[in-house]
């Protein structure tokens, strides 16, 4: 990279906030996915103005830039594919305002999700999106990905909980969209920007909608001998008009991984664990929890436990919370995907995934947000084994195809990033993609904001 550019970056953020040494750059050449790509420089702005000046410099020099939060991205979205500048927002980590009266918080993008929840709890408030990565992931990253998590059937996703954004546009210009009030006249660009994965600009400040903490919660854990029975229980619960806050299923491979790493006392000879979280007014919960337990027993659950106190509930949740880490512990190399299908298609897709698993001789640990049809098939492979990796990639492609055919999507919450771009055509026609490309062209005509992400290259037919 041109030394003059580095000097200009240094002038904007200070020498200590610019990295250019190869060893440092290596640290920012990957995220939590398997994608890699080395930046030419990494900068750590501390203000919106700093971000704006960096982006302006990039725009003038036609240099691509990639925003980055905590780097927990699971689709390669925060990895630079064309070099350029990685703009790390982790130092913009202030909660600027908690406006309890208006049920809003104003925060910078580098605030860690769980830190925010901890600041809000004493006010009796929460920010509903709580992805599983919340201990590490930043709210800016949550907004960039339109993050989900376990509570989306009842509470929706990130886009349902953000009312305003301050954005550094790819030209370096700073704009605000929305605010504390709802329904500003104009197209809903807050809605469009959320989930745009840093390809339309960089979010530098956010106005979040807060919600009162639920009055109370209860957790039901049921152990099944078949995955189908666990899935059927979920269907019956919803058919009876209940709307649990979370419905989580873990399969046998996941349970084995958990018990090998963080023993929680789950039996090893079972096929599925279903975790049901009910929240709301205390008076409704006893009856609902009892009914959920009854449904699980009717469907031949081997064991059903109900947690009423925070301690009891935490105990039931502990296996689920450690599932991802435990799986990563037995196989540090894994391909994670988050294909999502209409919930009732889960059994059908599951059978296909098991078939794919068998065909490729792979182990796939499955965890689902069963309430919203979000499947995490974690494909385990041996690091450095090229053949293993290739089979894992083939299996991923087959899972995506199966989910798209079942009326679902290739990504429910992790984003398209770099890794799923090639699968967009499973969901969208060239005309659909062209309509999305129009949006990108309005925001980023030069194509400098997080290039080669989200949308496939323009084909000759689709090009303007």
């Amino acid at each position: 990279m041109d030394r003059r550019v580095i000097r200009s970056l240094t002038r904007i953020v200070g020498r200590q906030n610019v990295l250019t040494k190869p060893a440092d750059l290596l640290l920012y050449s990957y995220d939590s996915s398997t994608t890699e790509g080395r930046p030419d420089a990494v900068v750590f702005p501390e203000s919106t103005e700093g971000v704006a000046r960096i982006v302006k410099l990039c725009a003038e020099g036609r240099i691509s830039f990639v925003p980055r939060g905590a780097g927990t991205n699971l689709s390669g979205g925060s990895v630079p594919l064309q070099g350029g500048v990685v703009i790390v927002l982790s130092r913009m980590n202030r909660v600027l305002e908690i406006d309890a009266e208006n049920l809003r918080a104003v925060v910078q993008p580098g605030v860690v999700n769980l830190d925010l929840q901890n600041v809000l709890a004493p006010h009796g408030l929460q920010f509903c999106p709580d992805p599983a990565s919340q201990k590490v992931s930043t709210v800016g990253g949550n907004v960039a990905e339109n993050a989900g998590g376990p509570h989306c059937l009842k509470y929706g996703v990130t886009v349902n909980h953000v009312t305003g954004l301050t954005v550094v546009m790819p030209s370096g210009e700073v704009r605000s969209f929305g605010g504390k009030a709802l329904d500003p006249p104009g197209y809903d660009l807050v809605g469009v920007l959320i989930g745009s994965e840093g390809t339309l600009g960089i979010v530098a400040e956010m106005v979040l909608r807060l919600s009162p903490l639920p009055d109370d919660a209860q957790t039901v854990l049921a152990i099944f001998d078949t995955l189908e029975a666990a899935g059927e229980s979920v269907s019956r619960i919803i058919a009876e008009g209940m709307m649990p806050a979370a419905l989580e299923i873990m399969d046998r491979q996941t349970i084995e991984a958990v018990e090998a790493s963080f023993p929680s006392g789950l039996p090893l000879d079972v096929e599925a664990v279903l975790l049901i979280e009910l929240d709301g007014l205390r008076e409704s919960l006893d009856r609902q929890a009892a009914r959920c337990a009854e449904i699980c027993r009717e469907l031949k659950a081997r064991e059903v436990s109900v947690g009423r106190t925070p301690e009891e509930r935490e105990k039931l949740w502990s296996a689920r919370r450690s599932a991802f880490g435990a799986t990563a512990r037995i196989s540090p190399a894994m391909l994670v995907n988050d294909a999502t299908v209409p919930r009732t298609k889960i059994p059908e897709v599951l059978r296909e995934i098991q078939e794919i698993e068998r065909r490729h001789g792979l182990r796939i640990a499955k965890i689902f947000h069963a309430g919203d049809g979000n499947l995490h098939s974690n494909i385990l492979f041996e690091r450095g084994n090229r053949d293993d990796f290739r089979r894992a990639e083939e299996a991923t492609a087959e899972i995506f195809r199966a989910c798209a055919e079942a009326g679902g999507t290739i990504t429910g919450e992790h984003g398209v990033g770099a890794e799923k771009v090639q699968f967009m055509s499973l969901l969208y026609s060239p005309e659909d993609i062209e309509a999305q490309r129009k949006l990108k062209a309005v925001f980023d005509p030069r194509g400098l904001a997080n290039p080669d992400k989200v949308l496939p290259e323009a084909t000759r037919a689709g090009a303007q």
Partner: protein
Amino acid sequence: MSALADKLHSLEDIIGPASLITDTEAVASYRVEGQQPLAVALPQSPAQVAGLLRQASQDGLSVLIRGAGHHLHLGAPPTPIGLVVAMDRVRQTVEYDAENLTITAQAGASLEELQRLAGERGQMLPLDPPGGDRATLGGIAATNLAGPIRMRYGSPRDLIIGLRVALADGALIKAGGKTVKNVAGYELGKLFVGSFGTLGAICEVTVRLTPKPERRAMLVLAMNSAEVKEVTGELLRSRLEVASLGIANPAAVERMRLSLPVTIAPDVRVVFIGLMGDGAAMARQEEEIAALSGGACARLNEAQGRDAWQALREAPYPDDANAVVVRAALPISHVAEAVELVTQFEGWWSVARAGDGLVYAGPPPDTTVRTTLERLTELRKFAGQRSGAVVLEAAPLEMKRSFSVWGQVQNLDLFRALKDAYDPTGNIGCGRYLSRPQ
């Protein structure tokens, strides 16, 4: 043949001559704010809608898209209208997937018929916009209009997870899908929902459903105006599950023709608390709310309650073609203050949706244009100073010419760039939303 006849003929080729209305008298009933369209098309499928848009764009025939026509009062005065594309016959229910809590229907399907369908399975579309159940799904999506239960369930923007849209160039595109979680590509649906038919014609909509609550109840609190802010604020921050929270001044109670079991003196504001849920939870909420209000709390009986839900939902709807209705959107802590401001205007009614920060208001029928304009200006200034915005939802044409319907819009240049990208010839929407000044 004249140039116009040629153009109309091309449209007939797409939908058949019987589906194109050109008779002046028949077309007159599709007038919008005095503008007579040249023709009205009644397509029967999304493909026909797309074909019409492409042809009209090629021929420079401006297009206005129409659902049930319930909210055509909303918008800037229209530029000349070439073709009204009425979605009445694009109205199939594509898929009701009760188990997955979604329904997909074409734009012209009425909310009423979809509610009936979902109701048979104990479910509902959590949408209650003003204008009655005759409102169409496409119209609701295009206007993003919601009602009192938005506080609990969100707005159409939150509840719509998939769309099929016909673009000006004739492309029929899909945005989103059938799952609540879906981050594959940009959320184009958000761009089209609430775009008032200026970026394309919404042809098909997928909406999230919710189980129908076991019971509904409506409580009313009659309180001194000074207490409203505190009490509603506490309710909004509480762990109770209030489904709707309305505030009405005495003029509004009279306009809604509600008979309530509370005494309404001029300085009294009525707070309407809508509850939805099961019996056990309901009883506790009623107790806590009564305690919060210091006992001045009445529970409406079933008939009164039904009337109140209905009246609150319809409150923003204009009484007639000359009625003025204005909407202020504010940070929620300023809602009570805005109701007080409006109540000071002579005889104005005001109904607020406290949980969403929306305040609707209007003058009594005999108010002069000049006074109304002064008041609207005052309200817009008030909202502007509090990071809010005012939209003139309904007004006679001459008033709209003196008072901007949408007000000062932030990022207008960007909106216009988007409009140019999706509708390069500026052919659809007829200047009703975010258009260049005439």
